């Protein structure tokens, strides 16, 4: 992982990535002119498609469906080998046989968000009106738009109530939006490392990333697809900056310290002398293999606009008034992107709504990324929360 000397060109061709945009290696739900997606910006998006994966089987009374909402740079490939990178699914720590979300017990759904670039309609998709890639002509989307599209998919799958909606970071925002918009359709909600609104600091980091993309001469005001190129350098810098915010000072120190990369002495140049530099360059270069630059702009924007309280007269508790959903909120001590104080504000609002809520803060030095990593205490809590909700819901499986 840390053996890369500088930002290499992507090992995977742009063709692999762009193929997935319109023809994903997963199931796809198409929504025609009769079913437009009504966006917050006032545009009716039509036609559009949602790419999704499912694991496990829906039970006879359709009560065991779990929706997983992915984070900013995630996708629907939650527990299978990724079709572009060939890497394991991004949440195989939580989802899989013997895991807290076991396909033997639950019917697990994960869809690529609207605005994404792994098969759901987004800025990298072909605009049917022009026959060209949408680019910046794609309407700006929001977290509520993503959730609205997911609800249409859930309708299409014939599911009325989701047993659980689960997600971390931007996925956690979608979980909260689900409970605020469709409280009766969410039996339990597991919201991890998230917030009910994006903080000023987080908006600032996103703006930094977007400006890095836009400063790349290959970006061409978002019309790079017409030129057959991709602003790799700008997007890689955006990813590098963002990646720092996903870690912590302690984790970086533990992982890399001031250690040198394949050398004993400084080279007195701007090579990646330090392991941490090499690591970041690798993170940047591997990211651009699988992610579209414009999609990154749109999805970061969606997070920036997110503020549940603002949609409810500025009072967060009103968003959850009378809600019957069982909540579990989880934060991590070293997460400075979505710090515990954000989760606590959410919990206070849920308490004020008399919602049934569990809230655990987990001690780790691994920062925001902890929700994707092997953190046993987090798994124990997730498992117990889902089991206890399952018991209340009357869910049984062949494992019981």
């Amino acid at each position, binding site marked *: 992982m840390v053996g890369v000397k500088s930002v290499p060109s992507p090992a995977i061709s742009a063709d692999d990535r762009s193929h997935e945009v319109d023809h994903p290696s997963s199931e796809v739900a198409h929504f025609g002119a009769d079913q437009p997606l009504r966006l917050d910006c006032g545009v009716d998006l039509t036609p559009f498609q949602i790419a999704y994966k499912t694991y496990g089987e829906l039970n006879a009374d359709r009560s065991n469906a779990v929706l997983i909402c992915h984070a900013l740079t995630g996708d629907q490939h939650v527990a299978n080998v990724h079709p572009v990178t060939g890497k394991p699914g991004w949440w195989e720590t939580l989802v899989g046989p013997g895991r807290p979300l076991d396909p033997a017990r639950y019917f697990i759904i994960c869809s690529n968000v609207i605005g994404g670039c792994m098969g759901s309609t987004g800025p990298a998709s072909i605009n049917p009106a022009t026959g060209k890639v949408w680019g910046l002509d794609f309407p700006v989307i929001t977290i509520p738009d993503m959730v609205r599209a997911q609800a249409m998919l859930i309708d299409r799958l014939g599911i009325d109530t989701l047993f659980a909606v689960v997600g971390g970071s931007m996925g956690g925002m979608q979980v909260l939006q689900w409970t605020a918009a469709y409280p009766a359709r969410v039996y339990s909600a597991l919201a991890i490392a998230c917030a009910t609104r994006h903080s000023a600091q987080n908006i600032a980091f996103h703006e930094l990333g977007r400006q890095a993309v836009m400063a790349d001469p290959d970006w061409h005001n978002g019309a790079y697809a017409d030129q057959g190129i991709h602003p790799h350098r700008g997007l890689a810098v955006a990813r590098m900056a963002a990646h720092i915010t996903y870690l912590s000072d302690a984790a970086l120190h533990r992982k890399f310290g001031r250690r040198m990369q394949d050398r004993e002495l400084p080279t007195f140049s701007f090579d990646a002398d330090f392991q941490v530099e090499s690591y970041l360059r690798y993170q940047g270069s591997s990211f651009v293999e699988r992610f579209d630059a414009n999609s990154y702009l749109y999805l970061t924007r969606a997070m920036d606009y997110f503020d549940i309280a603002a949609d409810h007269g500025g009072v967060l508790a009103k968003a959850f008034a009378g809600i019957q959903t069982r909540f579990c909120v989880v934060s991590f001590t070293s997460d400075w992107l979505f710090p515990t104080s954000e989760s606590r504000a959410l919990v206070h609002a849920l*308490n004020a709504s008399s919602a049934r*809520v*569990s*809230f*655990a*803060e987990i001690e780790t030095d691994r920062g925001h990324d902890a929700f994707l990593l092997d953190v046993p205490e987090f798994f124990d*809590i997730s498992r*117990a929360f889902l*089991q206890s909700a399952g018991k209340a819901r009357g869910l049984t499986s062949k494992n019981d």
Partner: protein
Amino acid sequence: MSVQEVLPLNGLVSEQSGPFRADHLLVAEMVKPGSKVLDVGCGEGDLLQLLETRGIDGRGIELSREGVNRCVAKGLAVVQGDADTDLVNYPDDAFDYVILSQTLQATRQPKVVLENLLRIGRRAIVSFPNFGFWRMRLQLLIGGHMPRTENLPASWYDTANIHFCTIKDFVELCDEIHVKMERAEALDLYGRPLRLRLPWWVWNLFGEQGVFLLSRGQGK
């Protein structure tokens, strides 16, 4: 504040039959089945689990992260929070009962906490160690040092208990803030109720802890 931190009762559990502590059983007995309960300072969730077996919808607040995480890992609806600062976030009449078990003496503002309990809950159940217990008195009178018992082993300089009171003090506080005492029990050193109907001064001398079922009184 977990019960274990404030009052290590582990030694007592062995003297009880069954998996539940005697003082928990007494508290549970005070709660009507089917009601909605908030346990403030729920520790590792033993009382909540007992209440759940009786069909009671229980929620908890716990200060220690370890306690909370163990509760959540048991499937209980518990949040990390502080009785002194977080009760204000709960709306009026949110619960049928709010329980404060062996935690009052560890709060910064017991009076405010007590008022909040009876704002959030229609009833409150409060238990606390009685500093009027004869062995406490004897240690101060004869030994000349701050009392320490099996249940309160911490030294004065490292105890989390900052607002000790006697049963008599507590009764006076209830009068002062117009709280109605619906039921009062004094427990002996083993957590067993003193069954005899005795005058207050006897309870104050022989009760190792007091357990009170409270409701809002007149003028409130």
